[in-house]
């Protein structure tokens, strides 16, 4: 339990640091949505007017003061007000969060289904023909820019086949196809690990021994190989959460969905610092939280690993 507590504390520190980090990075560029809107030549504001409004938002104070103020607000749960829209950041986020979570969860579902289909396929298909092709899929999935997948899917399934309507962007099928676009690269990562593990596990001595006990291919796969091969998938999935949240920026843009991703997109172009900070911190919380849970739950799944042991979950090498 001491271990769990330490991990939680560590996670909290990381989240706070992520908050500060974002602030520092974004503050590098002097620019903010307020001055930006004001400087739109259509507006024709004078310099004094601009200064007055900037002062209202406290944007003229030294950076460290701003950071201190925003950090002390953040700690008590106040995310501040969006400079761009003037709405409370917590409201902006709570409005779009569920949409992104649904998308990310569906994408994860799609990714898992695809990955396991590939994984099982490699164990069943004859080595020479189907397998080579199947094994090439993860690589291919990882090489296609996700916006190309998105544009392709939307073109074919929404416009050519009319399966879903883009304006109904939160609808079931629309969400499914967005999830496919977002999930494909993730499925590749999972499949890579899964296939490697299935190969590895099936070459393990215990697989031979189990077969020597009369088990057939399916029995071996389901009773023996599946569980140990899937365990590292927990790690990959936990890491993939980051990719899902990051990838949502583009997927949401293409599929015309609201969500954390499109919120980031909009806020970045206007340098809406409070929103960006909140979103990045939220993403960090989700990522750190999921990984924390994975760390704490893993020992329950894998009898070999005990909580707090230095080698807890197997570290999967993340390739970017």
């Amino acid at each position, binding site marked *: 339990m001491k271990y769990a507590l330490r991990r939680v504390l560590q996670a909290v520190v990381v989240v706070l640091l992520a908050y500060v980090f974002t602030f520092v990075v974004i503050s590098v*560029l*002097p*620019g903010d*949505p307020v*001055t*930006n*809107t*004001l*400087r*739109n*030549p*259509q*507006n*024709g*504001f*004078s310099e004094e*007017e601009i200064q*007055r*409004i900037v002062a*209202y*938002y406290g944007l003229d104070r030294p950076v460290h003061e701003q950071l201190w103020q925003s950090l002390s607000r953040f700690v008590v749960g106040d995310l501040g*007000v*969006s400079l*761009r*829209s*003037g*709405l*409370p950041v917590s*409201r*902006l986020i709570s*409005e*779009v969060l569920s949409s992104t979570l649904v998308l990310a969860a569906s994408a994860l579902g799609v990714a898992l289904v695809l990955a396991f289909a590939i994984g099982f396929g490699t164990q069943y298909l004859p080595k020479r023909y189907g397998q080579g092709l199947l094994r090439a899929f993860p690589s291919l999935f990882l090489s296609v820019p996700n916006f190309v997948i998105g*544009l392709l899917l*939307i*073109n074919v399934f*929404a*416009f050519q086949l*009319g399966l879903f*309507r*883009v*304006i109904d*962007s939160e609808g079931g099928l629309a969400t499914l196809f967005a999830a496919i676009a977002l999930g494909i690269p993730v499925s590749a990562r999972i499949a890579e690990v899964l296939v490697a593990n299935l190969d590895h596990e099936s070459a393990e001595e215990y697989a031979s021994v189990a077969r020597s006990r009369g088990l057939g291919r399916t029995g071996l796969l389901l009773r023996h190989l599946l569980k140990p091969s899937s365990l590292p998938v927990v790690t990959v999935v936990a890491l993939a959460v980051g990719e899902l949240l990051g990838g949502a920026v583009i997927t949401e*843009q*293409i*599929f*015309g*969905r*609201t969500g954390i991703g*499109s*919120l980031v*997109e*909009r806020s970045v*172009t*206007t*340098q809406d610092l409070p929103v960006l900070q909140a979103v990045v911190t939220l993403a960090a919380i989700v990522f750190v939280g999921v990984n924390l849970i994975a760390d704490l739950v893993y020992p329950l799944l894998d009898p070999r690993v005990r909580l707090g042991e230095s080698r807890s979950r197997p570290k999967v090498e993340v390739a970017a």
Partner: protein
Amino acid sequence: AGGPAAGTATPPKDGGAITFLIDSLGDTWIPNNSAISSFQGHIWGHLTDKLVYVDDKGAVSPWVAEKWEQNATATEFTLHLRQGVTFSDKTPLDAAAVVANLDIWSKGDPTRGINPIGLFPKTYDHSQAVDTTTVKVFFKAPTLGFIPTLGYHGSILISPKTIALPSAQQADLSNDIGSGPFVLASWKEGDSVVLKKRPDYNWGPKALGHEGPARLDSITYKLVAEPSVRTSAVQSGQADVAYNPSPQELASFKSQGFTTATPRYLGFVNGFAINTKVAPFDDVKVRQALQHGIDRKEIISTVYTEDWLPAQSLFQSNVPGATDRSADFAYDADKANRLLDEAGWVKGADGVRAKDGKRLEFTLYANPYLAASKSVDELVAQQLGKLGFKTTIQAFDVVTYGERVKINSPSVAAYEVTRSFIDAGTVAGVLTDANKGENWFGLGQTDAKLVQLATGVAAADSVEKRAPLLDELQGHVLQQGYFVPLTQIVQRLYLQSPKLQGVTYNGIAYANYYAAWLG
């Protein structure tokens, strides 16, 4: 085609819902702070009314203000309001409400983070409600542009209750009460705004040729950031209007039977304001060479379609007071070459002209407010390249652009203008630095003729007296090469389902669906 959409094939009928795909829903919904947004203007245009209506020819006609008078020096105006106009919360839109609006437009409220309306005349002094339907407005100096400005997209009439709210609440669109033909049904930040018709609406502008409530039941503005997704959705019948399709594809859509609309706003044409302090543009010949070296026809045929018009002056040709000055800057490559030769710029081995060891070059900053700007600049760079004039293109996002590209800054030799206005008098405030003018050409008040013309335009107390001054001013600015027009600007483009009819476009090129119907 500009103006009302073509095709009135089916008779008007009531009912139906349309979907309008838009590339952004702007930033904030605080009415004062957002009214300028090119995106939110669509929604404000249906949620709110204005005091006057300005059509796409710049003609001003009554709306909430039934009639108005002004004194001889154009410093005092009296507005007579229409009776019985109410906000959607049933409170009356009366003289007191108008005074509240005028005050907040002109001054904003810095303590609440509410900006003034940028283009509202700075000469505003105060206004008072004479009775429930009469408002008197006082100015410190002649303000010819006041009445047309009331039809500008910023001047939206909002309920005084809303105006009194703190900014965080005004930012919630559902708190923003207007008197328009539509009311808010629902909205989701960064996603969509759904409007439904207001059944008791009965005070639309006469100019739109429709009375009573709107015909359509609802309008959904849905944010779809990808241009290709917007157009494909209209093409496949999933939506009715796509905002800002790429101009080059319009012809092809048209041939497929879709309606396209490219209304022009009132304002300056798209062109370069030249900083005469920056080399090589400190030489009038180089400026003139630039004017004559640009092939506007090729721009239109390559980047745009024949719906675009070449510039005839520095104003769009629909602006009252604009005159045809195209001869002053007509495309003539030989002339441009000659001018550059005369100015002493000699072509080097790499095809770039040079003088005293300096190359003839400058940077164009593509205007992020105009989608086609990059393509136009690329083409201009190609054309100038043939003259031996090297042009580099720099493109920034809106934020960086606002930071780095400022008009009249020494690093910006040519500022790409995209600016709408409702009254040509605006020009007086940008040409020189007199009266805190924007000093577009970096001349300060050194060009006496320019100063004199600008002051004359500003001080004019009637449109008739102003017209000849305006004409002379346009001629002077163009002959001196201070401004290099490109094309008349179409900043708002629409791709539309052929079923949607009766759409109107106002003087700032916003589509209005009050009178529209689905065939």
